[in-house]
């Protein structure tokens, strides 16, 4: 019994094993891929390039009309084909007439405004001329007044000296004392002349500093040129500063040269009366006489003032001690430069060389801030600081020398007085005091004359400054020209009764006007110009670009399939701007075959040379390193018996299309079978069942 049970269990065990043998066999068989083998073939790889696109016109024509005109009717729609001269839309004539009228009124307004501007400019010009004449007249009068005062002071001085001399001759003093006094007097006069000269130099320098500061600030205020002009002013100041460092003994000549260089219209005439080394009058030996003349531009319309200045200068024939009066360099609009010194250098701060900026450039530059103006002024003044200090020191030194000489003269006279009797000494002392008073008055008159000269020149120059440019008139003129052109165009529209027609045969691709609304500022109607033909622009993938080139003949098929155009040359191939992976292929479409807007397909088949090892693309695999391989089969001896197993053969692809790949020779030959199809995924080592 026990053995029978064991026998039964054994039998059951064997039956189960048989059952599971069958099951496992079935399961294993179901897991084996059924593959089809094939051998590489000798064939050509055909590359088919396909792309779709839309037919576009070669050229568009924009129909543009005057903006702001009311549209009476629109006769076309988008997509409509029109012929040349066909009515597109019509403008409202009443509205057009009103616009013409309004345009004329605008033109009239502009003309009147232009007249007003012209009148204002004329009045302003006259006012400026009067101001200049007034300043020149004031300058002339003050100069003559100073000359008269100076001549009176000189006469009083000579008279006092003469009385003292007569008194001493009458009293009969010692000759030695008289000679000593004359020498001291001469020294004293020289010191006095030096002091006056120093004072004059100081005033002249101060005037020049102020003028340089004004010029620099004015040029800085004119815009971007300010920097350069200010630099010019600074450079000029440096030059003058350098000249001021000349030895003291040459101060007169240097100053004269400096003024002659910096003021182009300066004329210096020295020694015209009693001047020169050969002068017999000892009182006049140290006196330099200078007369001056002021040339005033004829355009300034100041003949009377010019004559007055010349008369005063010539008739006075003044002997002015160490006075150098320079002519004033003014703007060319007010003053004509003297022909003799026309080639001279321009004055400081007023020079206008080639580097000066144009008004347009000045307008574009931002105005300088107060801080910048202060800085510019500071810089200009700092350039003259050394000169000014030297001039002030020279004045102080001259004054000290003068006082020392006067003290020595006074001692000499006191000794002479002590030698005389008390009665005559008192009388002589009175005469000496009179001479001293006259001498002081003369010096004051000389200084006052110099100050009057400087002040007058500055006023004349200020009056001659140019006014700011005013372009209002030019702007009005430009507006007037523009308005006239617009009026001309409106008249033309009215002449054609507001009818806008198609300029060429074409298809309406855009209508931007609406009945009852105003015409836009840009295009009113856009036309596809049919006379220029049309083209197909199709998109192809970038990797197909190498199979198509310019001039290749392609086939174009319309989207509805009704029209097929063959052997059309490729006009261009270019990358798509929005997507670098897409190429745009352009083909010219023969006239009349396809309408703009039509969808069409472009195709091209290009065959390669014959490759000996071509396999279906399904037989080609790509591993994780992007290397290509094929799967061949081999027999293996396994537990289950002889089976077919796939193994990897690395290959190199020479060419491929969407169906076949051409392999390089070497790794595989034409007699080797490879797996070309499978009913399930196959990898290296997979057991396979070959079905054919």
């Amino acid at each position, binding site marked *: 019994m026990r*053995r029978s049970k*064991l*026998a039964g*269990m*054994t039998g059951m*065990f064997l039956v189960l*094993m048989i059952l*599971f*043998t069958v*099951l*496992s*066999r079935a*399961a*294993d068989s179901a897991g084996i891929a059924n593959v089809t083998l094939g051998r590489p073939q000798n064939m050509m790889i055909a590359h088919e390039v396909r792309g779709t696109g839309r037919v576009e016109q070669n050229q568009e024509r924009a129909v543009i009309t005057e903006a702001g005109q009311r549209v009476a009717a629109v006769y076309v729609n988008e997509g409509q084909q029109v012929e040349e001269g066909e009515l597109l839309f019509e403008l409202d004539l009443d509205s057009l007439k009103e616009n013409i009228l309004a345009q004329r009124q605008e033109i009239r307004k502009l003309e009147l405004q232009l007249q007003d501007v012209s009148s204002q400019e004329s009045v302003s010009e006259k006012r400026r001329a009067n101001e200049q004449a007034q300043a020149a007249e004031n300058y002339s009068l003050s100069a003559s007044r100073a000359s008269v005062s100076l001549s009176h002071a000189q006469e009083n001085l000579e008279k006092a000296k003469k009385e003292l001399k007569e008194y001493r001759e009458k009293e009969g003093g010692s000759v030695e004392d008289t000679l000593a006094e004359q020498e001291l007097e001469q020294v004293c006069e020289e010191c006095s002349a030096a002091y006056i000269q120093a004072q004059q130099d100081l005033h002249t320098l101060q005037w020049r500093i102020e003028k340089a500061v004004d010029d620099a600030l004015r040029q800085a205020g004119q815009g971007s040129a300010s920097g350069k002009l200010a630099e010019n002013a600074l450079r000029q100041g440096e030059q003058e500063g350098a000249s001021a460092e000349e030895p003291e003994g040459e101060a007169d000549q240097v100053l004269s040269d400096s003024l002659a260089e910096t003021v182009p219209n300066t004329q210096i005439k020295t020694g015209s009366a009693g001047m020169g080394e050969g002068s017999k009058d000892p009182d006049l030996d140290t006196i330099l006489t200078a007369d001056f003349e002021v040339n005033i531009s004829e355009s300034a319309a100041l003949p009377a003032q010019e004559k007055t200045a010349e008369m005063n200068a010539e008739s006075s024939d003044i002997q002015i001690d160490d006075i150098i009066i320079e002519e004033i360099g003014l703007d060319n609009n007010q003053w004509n430069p003297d022909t003799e010194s026309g080639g001279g250098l321009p004055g400081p701060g007023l020079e206008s060389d080639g580097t000066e900026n144009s008004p347009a450039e000045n307008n574009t530059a931002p105005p300088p801030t107060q801080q910048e103006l202060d800085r510019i002024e500071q810089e200009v003044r700092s350039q003259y600081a050394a000169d000014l200090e030297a001039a002030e020191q020279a004045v102080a030194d001259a004054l000290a020398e003068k006082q020392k000489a006067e003290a020595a003269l006074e001692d000499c006279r006191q000794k002479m007085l002590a030698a005389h009797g008390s009665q005559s000494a008192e009388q002589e002392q009175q005469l000496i005091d009179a001479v001293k008073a006259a001498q002081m008055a003369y010096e004051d008159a000389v200084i006052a004359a110099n100050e009057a000269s400087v002040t007058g020149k500055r006023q004349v120059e200020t009056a001659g400054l140019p006014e700011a440019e005013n372009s209002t008139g030019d702007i009005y003129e430009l507006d007037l020209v523009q308005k006239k052109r617009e009026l001309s165009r409106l008249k033309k529209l009215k002449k054609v009764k507001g009818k806008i027609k198609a300029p060429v045969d074409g298809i309406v691709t855009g209508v931007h006007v609406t009945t009852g609304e105003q015409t836009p500022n840009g295009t009113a109607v856009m036309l596809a110009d049919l006379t220029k033909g049309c083209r197909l622009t199709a998109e192809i993938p970038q990797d197909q670009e190498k199979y198509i080139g310019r001039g290749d003949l392609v086939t174009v098929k319309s989207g509805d399939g009704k029209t097929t155009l063959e052997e059309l040359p490729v006009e261009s191939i270019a990358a798509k701007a929005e997507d670098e992976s897409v190429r745009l292929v352009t083909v010219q479409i023969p006239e009349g075959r396809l309408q703009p807007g039509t969808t069409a397909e472009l195709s091209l088949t290009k065959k390669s040379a014959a490759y000996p090892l071509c396999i279906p693309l399904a037989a080609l695999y790509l591993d994780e390193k992007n290397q290509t391989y094929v799967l061949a089969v081999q027999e293996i*001896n*396994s*537990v*289950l*018996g*002889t089976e077919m197993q796939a193994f990897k053969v690395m290959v190199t692809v020479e060419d491929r299309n969407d169906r076949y790949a051409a392999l390089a020779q070497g790794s595989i030959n034409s007699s080797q079978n490879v797996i070309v199809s499978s009913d399930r995924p196959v990898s290296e080592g997979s057991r396979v069942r070959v079905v054919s």
Partner: protein
Amino acid sequence: MKRKIRNFVITCLLCIPAAVTVFPVLFALSGVFMSGYELKQYLGPVLAGTDGMARWSLIPRIPTLAPLVELLIDSPQFFVMFWNSVKLTLGILAGQLLVGVPAAWGLARFSFPGRKLLYTLYLVLMLMPFQVLMLPQYIVLDRLSLLDTHAGIILPAVFSTFPVFIMYRFFHGIPEAVLEAARIDGADNLQIFLRIGIPLGSAGIVSAMILGFLEYWNLIEQPMTYLKTRALWPLSLFLPEIGLDEAGTGFTAAVMMLIPALLVFLGGQDYLEQGIAAAAVKE
């Protein structure tokens, strides 16, 4: 009372070696129901070289039948080898029945010159290990073109001397009077062999077959030596191809391999004991 205590102590002491003996079977059985992840955790340090020490649990944490299903459904190779083992074992045993039983009967019951020498030769051949016979057998099988065939395994085993030796003992133990009575009744030698010898020596035959089954079911050296075609391999060569990833399958295959041997052992346990006892009796 004392006797009971003594018996209990003895039983406990005997249980220790019994547990050690049975542990491999329990080991394999628990492995059948373990997942691959659990097996890797336990055996990784040994089979995969991971850190730590190998350990084992007789109770799976997550019991699963996946290894069993995988072996029975997804491993046709196992069944190929199983049936190869069945084929080899049954072929050898059948051959031994045909060849070994008459040989043992002849040696035990017939007197002829050189019998003793022949029997001694049998004993010497029985004692020779496979390593000694491997090369001569290989050359002979090669000359006979029996290499890489199941016949190359079966034929040498059919002429094994061990079952002859076992059966010799049983045939030799049959009383001569019984055989004489048969001769008096007119039975010839063949009839005596078939009607008297085989029935009376059936215990020896069966025990020789059981011992032979256990030996040839686990045959491993001869197939490894003489079989190159994997499709001819017996089940004993299935396990060496199992790695850590298929450890569960390996345990399942081991258990499945154990089942036939266990059934044969249980069915022929008495004969097996008699056979072993007969082999141990000194001439």
